[in-house]
């Protein structure tokens, strides 16, 4: 019985951790390239969740297609917000203005969603959440399998993009030294826009993956974003590999804390770990030089 429970909570933790990784990756990317925190990331996640919901329930699309739709909505949103708000503020040369603007965008989006979608929680059912597999005393839904597969695929694609494509290398160059990258013929503004677009596309897709798990309201993203920030810090600011490990770790901590302590202890354990990391290993789990991040 104990081994079964341990296996079950490990499965639960990996599924939850995969979702956290999807949300935290976008934050990590933005921090790695722009050294900036995007407080509106949670609302990009929520909007992605709603985009998937309406694509599936109003337009009659399949769940997997709705994930694609959420990704597109995230991409367009990221591009629009960058062009309309972040880029003009960056041009004024202030680091603080875009940071404050992300708070403004967050509040604006949250209230716009409240006006459009209302406060009543939506039930986002997919054909995969009803399909339950029972193996050797454990259980998992087809939805869980989809979450892990899509998360793994996304992480692999992002990693390949960053390591092996010209644009990925250029992004890393901008992360290392924006001015020198500019002197080498790389357009930093274009790459910053690309970073924000990739990050918000990931947020949109993360929202679609989270939607069947989350309590879907206009405030849904806010409930996971605090943990996503903790994951980014535990993993190492801007470090993709660290974020993946930290995301899975936090998912597992949640599952096992629920089983052996109490759900009320989850935040105490996770944020206790965050404080320990800040005190003894402020560079995060993967302590590369910052220029190696992203």
């Amino acid at each position, binding site marked *: 019985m104990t081994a079964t429970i341990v296996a079950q909570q490990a499965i639960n933790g990996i599924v939850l951790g995969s979702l956290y990784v999807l949300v935290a990756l976008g934050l990590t990317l933005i921090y790695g390239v722009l050294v900036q925190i995007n407080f509106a990331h949670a609302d990009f996640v929520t909007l992605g969740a709603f985009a998937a919901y309406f694509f599936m329930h109003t337009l009659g699309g399949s769940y997997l297609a709705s994930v694609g739709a959420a990704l597109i909505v995230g991409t367009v949103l990221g591009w629009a917000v960058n062009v309309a708000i972040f880029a003009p503020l960056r041009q004024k040369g202030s680091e603080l203005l875009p940071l404050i603007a992300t708070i403004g965008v967050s509040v604006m989006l949250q209230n716009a969603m409240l006006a459009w979608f209302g*406060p009543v929680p939506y039930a986002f059912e997919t054909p995969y959440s009803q399909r*339950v597999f029972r193996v050797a005393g454990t259980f998992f839904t087809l939805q869980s399998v989809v979450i892990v597969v899509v998360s793994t695929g996304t992480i692999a694609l992002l990693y390949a993009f960053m390591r092996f494509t010209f644009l990925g290398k250029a992004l890393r160059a901008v992360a290392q030294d924006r001015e020198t990258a500019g002197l080498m013929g790389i357009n930093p503004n274009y790459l910053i826009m690309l970073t924000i677009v990739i990050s918000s596309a990931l947020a949109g897709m993360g929202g679609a993956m989270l939607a069947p798990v989350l309590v879907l*309201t206009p405030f849904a993203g806010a409930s996971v974003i605090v943990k996503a920030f903790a994951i980014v810090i535990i993993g190492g600011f801007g470090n993709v590999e660290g974020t993946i490990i930290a995301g899975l770790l936090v998912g597992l901590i949640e599952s096992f804390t629920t089983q052996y302590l109490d759900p*009320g202890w989850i935040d105490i354990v996770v944020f206790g770990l965050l404080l320990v990391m800040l005190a003894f290993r402020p560079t995060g789990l993967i302590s590369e030089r910052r220029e190696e991040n992203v």
Partner: protein
Amino acid sequence: MNRRDWLTILALAAIAVLGAGNASAQDKTIKIGALFPTSGPGSYFGAQDKQGVELALEELNKAGVNGYKFTVQYEDSACSPLPASQAAKRLLDQYKPDVIIGEECSDATLAIMPIIEQAKTPMINAGSSALKITDPGNPYTFRIMPNEVMQGVDIATNAYNKLNARTAVLLNENTNAGIGNAKVFKDTFEKLGGKVVAEIGFGRDVNDFTSIATRVAGVGKVDVIPTYTLEGQGLKITQALAQAGVVKGGGGAAIQLGTIWLPFGFEQKAGKAATGYVRIVQFDPTDQRDIVKNFVKNFKTKFNADPTHLNAHAYDQIMLIADVVKRGGKDAQSIRDTLAQTKSFVGVTGSVEFDKNNQNTKMDTIHYMETKPDLTWNALKWN
């Protein structure tokens, strides 16, 4: 001054007097302040409460009551103590209501209570269950629903006697109401001879309940799972318990027990997982009393939807105020004093008679419903 001038002066004086009379008639207004959550996880309460209030006002203001019309001012109290206190102060300072209705969440209501007592403005509560609201309470706070003890004792007794439950797992959000309700169930159930095999509390930020369902599945045989949480988390808990094969909706044996916190339509959102769910509701739409049939009909006409218990109890709050005005209430103090003497108000949710702590003593506002496989309700008629 000639005759024509005198006539003009007289005409103006008459207009002034009539105008003053008119203004006086228009001034005969009972100002109702509504403290409802319209943001955050409990915002569905506010959205549905408003509908009930609007229907009641529409019906009452056609003719008025004792020459009084009713107006309402809403403030977002967010189901949380700090925004609720700020909203209450704003409402009292700016709108100066004669009576207040709300809040829904116990923590928020408890935070508002000293403020309205200081302002000597009565408040009618319909959705908060924490015992402390009326025990000891304060002279200005009235509650028209049974408190957590009345509800908890009733649910635990029915679980033991009617469902033959002997073991239970308690699931509750870590709030005053969640913890309080769970404690009353536990005390009563164990006193009757039942055993609580696990108590699991969680914050409102928990989204994934698979781990909690796993823990419940691991504790062995469970007959009932009383669950005290808001709609969003309630949905996820029910689905996770079904996936884990614990509750009837997932092929298990346990029966989930729910509270009036869940709105109507919960079962349709939860899907098959909700099969076998037994919960109390504050309003029975199948009730054959004329007052209920008219309410259902008028609500459908106005909003093109079936009313929920939140719609119903907000409607009753306004109708109770109208009843008080009919009995002579005209300002904050007289409304408070008349409310306290309420013995036989009949509303759509049930009846109201306040005890010395301003707690409704009537239990006919609690209706037990069981979810059938087609997700409709079977009224259990236990009260």
